[in-house]
């Protein structure tokens, strides 16, 4: 799913017509000015149709949301230790909630359903914090190598910092409704930081989930033996 997400979104980035909140004249996707969500908008800031990128980006989020249902099978890997199993159960169910929130993000393009979009983004990221917290404990108490606990702690710290700084003060109105107000209240550099932070946290998430799959695989092997 991670590989699918990267490939499909690379195509979406290529097909995005361009335009950001600070520079509507851009003709391509800008890594420092365009949020990921910009790929999923129905029409760009210039009013151009964004049919292809919109479908590609939103479909990846929907697919990721459904893929998170695979966390239903995670707790059984931690059954050897009761406390670890309970933590894995709690962590997995919260991870599913988080995944379903990202599915919601995919079904609510920011230009059509701004408030719903922001709501799902916030729930998605914030719910990852307790979810990862419990999964970290589950890894810690399990017989699997400590490197997975370390990776989990690093991911938890990153997502907590991101949630505190990037989801604690959500905009009350859509920037598109009043672009001048947005530019007055949000400094250009602050927007660039948000955009880049989003890219970094996405990258950290992908790497972490990739590492976790190896941890889960090791647990499967340990169970067999």
């Amino acid at each position, binding site marked *: 799913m991670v590989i699918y997400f990267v490939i499909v979104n690379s195509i979406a980035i290529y097909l995005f017509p361009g335009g950001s909140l600070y520079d509507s004249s851009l003709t391509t996707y800008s890594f420092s000015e365009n949020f990921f969500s910009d790929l999923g908008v*129905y029409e760009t800031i210039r009013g151009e*149709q964004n*049919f*292809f990128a*919109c*479908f590609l980006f*939103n*479909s990846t989020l*929907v697919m990721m949301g459904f893929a998170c249902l695979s966390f239903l099978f995670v707790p059984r890997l931690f059954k050897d230790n009761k406390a670890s199993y309970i933590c894995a159960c709690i962590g997995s169910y919260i991870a599913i909630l988080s995944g379903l929130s990202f599915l919601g993000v995919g*079904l609510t*393009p920011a230009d*059509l359903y701004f408030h719903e979009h922001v709501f799902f983004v916030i729930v998605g990221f914030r719910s990852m914090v307790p979810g990862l917290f419990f999964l970290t404990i589950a890894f810690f108490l399990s017989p699997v190598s400590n490197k997975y606990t370390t990776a989990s702690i690093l991911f938890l710290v990153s997502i907590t910092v991101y949630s505190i700084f990037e989801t604690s003060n959500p905009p009350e109105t859509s920037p598109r409704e009043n672009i001048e107000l947005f530019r007055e209240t949000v400094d250009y550099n602050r927007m660039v930081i948000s955009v880049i932070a989003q890219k970094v946290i996405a990258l950290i998430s992908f790497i972490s989930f990739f590492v976790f799959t190896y941890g889960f695989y090791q647990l499967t092997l340990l169970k067999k033996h």
Partner: protein
Amino acid sequence: MNRFWCLYVPRFTVIFFLVSICIAMLLYPGGNHLETDQIGYSLSKNFISELGRFKTMSGDNNFFSAFLFIIASFINVLQGIAFLFIAKLFHQNKISYVFAIIGGICILIGNLFFVGVCLTPEDLFFDEHIFVAQNGFNFASLGIFSLSIAVILSRMKNIYALISVVLMILLVIYSITVGHIPEINPSDTVLYANTYSMETQIFKVIMQKLIVATLMMFVFTFTFGLNALIKNHD
């Protein structure tokens, strides 16, 4: 493996397609090629591909319907791949096998063209939309035709051969009755209204629905016939 690709995948894709299309219809904001003020989707006045429009004829955003329509068409590619596996079940008769392979390839190409239909909404890429829709239909027809011959020559029960022949006849009737009607870009509302009466529109729409429903029913019932072939194959 055989059961998965030859039975479960075709059945799943048919059910998934129908459910997705039904939900897309419920979420469709409204408007048809001749009546822009229509509210909601009309089974007799709206074409299936209108579900994939970027903006409906009423000018509303059509995000959810288009999204579901595109997802459904992509899932349908699995059905095309399944027909390549299905072809293997006809290996007992060489001629039947060759026709089954040709049929499978044509159906897969047809389904890929139908993905193209969804990726070229009629309000954004009308000429491309018509091109892929017509080619999709032509390849699907050719595929059904080849597969029907394969079924006739195979050990499948005669009822499935009969269904295949009936479907072939329906495809021919559809081509004769609808094929000659010229395609006009609905964005040119005046020309469209001058060319088509509501009766012609309803006729075309209902014929399209009937042919799609028949194709889906064919695929679904066909899998029951394949069950016997799989047992022989195993």
